[in-house]
């Protein structure tokens, strides 16, 4: 018997939301298949709390691939290790979180494990006749595509926020899988990291995103955006021109040429809703648009709209949410 295997990405000794989503998807897939769920951690050591967390989200076995070479993420080395596990244990189904590292790992591992790859899908694969079938978004949110494969192993990555992490506690056994990457896979060496900000929710994982555009007139006016984001526990984003002129950092730029996101709630302030902007945000579950121009194209893609001056509406909205949260905080 084989298993569904989830690559558990550990970031500074923690499991982030995309891994919890992957474990939840893996648990559901494993239950349908009647196979166990295993999590695999690749690293140089394992933080103490990780096994408990992994068990809480439904894994029955934790496989550790520990070696000093894995102290930082090197795509080739990690992929070689994962592929070795897939081959040796005859694993047919693999879930990889769709993070920066997961997206680098998946295609390499798919080749070395001789696997098919579904990336960025929004449904857990279902068996239809001979095929595994799943759905993904295509053409800048202007279409959906159903894809299928009869090829095993099958590796999947799920688009962020496609599945809500659910606890499903199992008792966990731990096993070591020994693997040392060949030197040729260690040629690209990470030599340092520059952090931009650590206190904020990462944009790609955020459930709520507050985003603003040229309508805010200047970088000095972003306080109202920051405050709204703060009461909501949201990440902040911006349109392209705003990042281009340096009002906001580039890593906040969302859209076709920026980051693509699909939070539960996207609040767009003073953004016209150009098609290239929508390409990155239109798969958000709910969209609230605040714009002074009733004809702004963004309203056509919105669930909620407030026509008004951002400088009046946004502080008012922040205040209303703060009041609501105070009243309902117990």
């Amino acid at each position, binding site marked *: 018997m084989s298993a569904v295997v989830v690559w558990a990405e550990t970031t500074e000794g923690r499991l982030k939301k995309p891994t919890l989503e992957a474990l939840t998807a893996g648990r559901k897939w494993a239950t349908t298949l009647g196979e166990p769920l295993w999590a695999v951690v690749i690293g140089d050591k394992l933080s103490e709390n990780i096994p408990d967390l992994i068990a809480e989200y439904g894994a029955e076995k934790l496989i550790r691939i520990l070696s000093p070479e894995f102290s930082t993420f090197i795509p080739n080395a990690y992929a070689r290790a994962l592929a070795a596990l897939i081959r040796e244990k005859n694993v047919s189904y693999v879930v990889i979180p769709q993070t920066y590292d997961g997206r680098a790992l998946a295609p390499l591992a798919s080749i070395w494990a001789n696997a098919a790859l579904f990336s960025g899908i929004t449904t857990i694969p279902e068996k239809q006749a001979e095929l595994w079938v799943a759905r993904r978004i295509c053409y800048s949110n202007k279409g959906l595509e159903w894809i299928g494969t009869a090829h095993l192993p099958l590796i999947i990555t799920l688009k962020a926020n496609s599945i809500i992490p659910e606890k499903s506690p199992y008792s966990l056994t731990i096993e070591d899988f020994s693997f040392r990457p060949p030197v040729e896979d260690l040629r*690209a060496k990470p030599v340092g990291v520059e952090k931009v900000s650590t206190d904020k929710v990462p944009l790609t994982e955020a459930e709520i995103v507050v985003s603003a555009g040229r309508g805010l007139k200047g970088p000095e006016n972003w306080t109202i955006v920051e405050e709204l984001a703060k009461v909501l526990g949201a990440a902040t984003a911006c349109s392209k021109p705003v990042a281009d002129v340096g009002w906001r950092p580039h890593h906040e730029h969302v859209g076709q040429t920026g980051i693509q996101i699909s939070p539960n709630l996207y609040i767009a302030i003073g953004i016209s809703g150009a098609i290239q902007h929508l390409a990155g945000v239109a798969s958000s579950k709910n969209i609230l648009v605040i714009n002074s121009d009733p004809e702004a194209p963004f309203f056509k893609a919105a669930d909620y709209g407030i026509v008004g001056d951002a400088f009046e509406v946004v502080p008012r909205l922040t205040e209303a949410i703060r009041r609501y949260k105070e009243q309902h905080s117990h």
Partner: protein
Amino acid sequence: MKILCCISHVPDTTTRIQFTADGKALDRSGVTFIINPYDDFVLARAAELKEKNPTGVHVTVLCVGKNGASSTDSVDANLRKALALGLDEAVRIDAEPLDAFFVASQIAAYAQDKGFDLFLFGKESIDYNGSQVPGMVAALLGLPFISYATSIEILNGSAKLTREITGGKELIESPLPLVLSAQKGLAEWRIPNVRGIMQAKSKPLHVIAPLSVSPRVQTLRHEPPPPKGTFKKIEPERIDELVQELANKGLI
């Protein structure tokens, strides 16, 4: 130094998307195809490297695709646009890009014995956003893979790169050859000038027959996105009601 830029041929974002009656494919009629915007970053970076060292750098642009029926759906025209940035030669592998594995296999087979030092890709193409082909090519050729690269400098046969990661960037050093996928930042987009466009007309564009490879993933059907829910306009005076509704939906 030999550079291979791999580009994909995608519908312009502003284009209206419709599917064929059986849902199997994009209805290409009336659709304008462009070079994938992330690949534009790669072409611009290659052009910069070429400019700095015109005789020492040779850039090949490659696309796996068939020319469509209309002039707005021509892979060759997009390859010439790329050449107009001052790049050297183009290659079209004459096949429908069936899936990422198929495309990656074609590229790897072509590049295998050509001695490329740098393989440049966009981080994803805006039609299916798969982010698969660059990593697959790296694996097929056994080369270091750097994804979401935001800069690359070459010095004495090795590269210094930055790569986007959650909440920051990572610095990487790697010998050549290597494969990278580009994020915004790698270079500023360029627009070809008239001289470049004229010169591109007579540059070599090789059309190559594909290798026989079975794709691993097939398209079953497409459908339009689900219709948008009802739109609610809220008067600024009634913001409290909006907050209540967002709370009822569990959004805040």
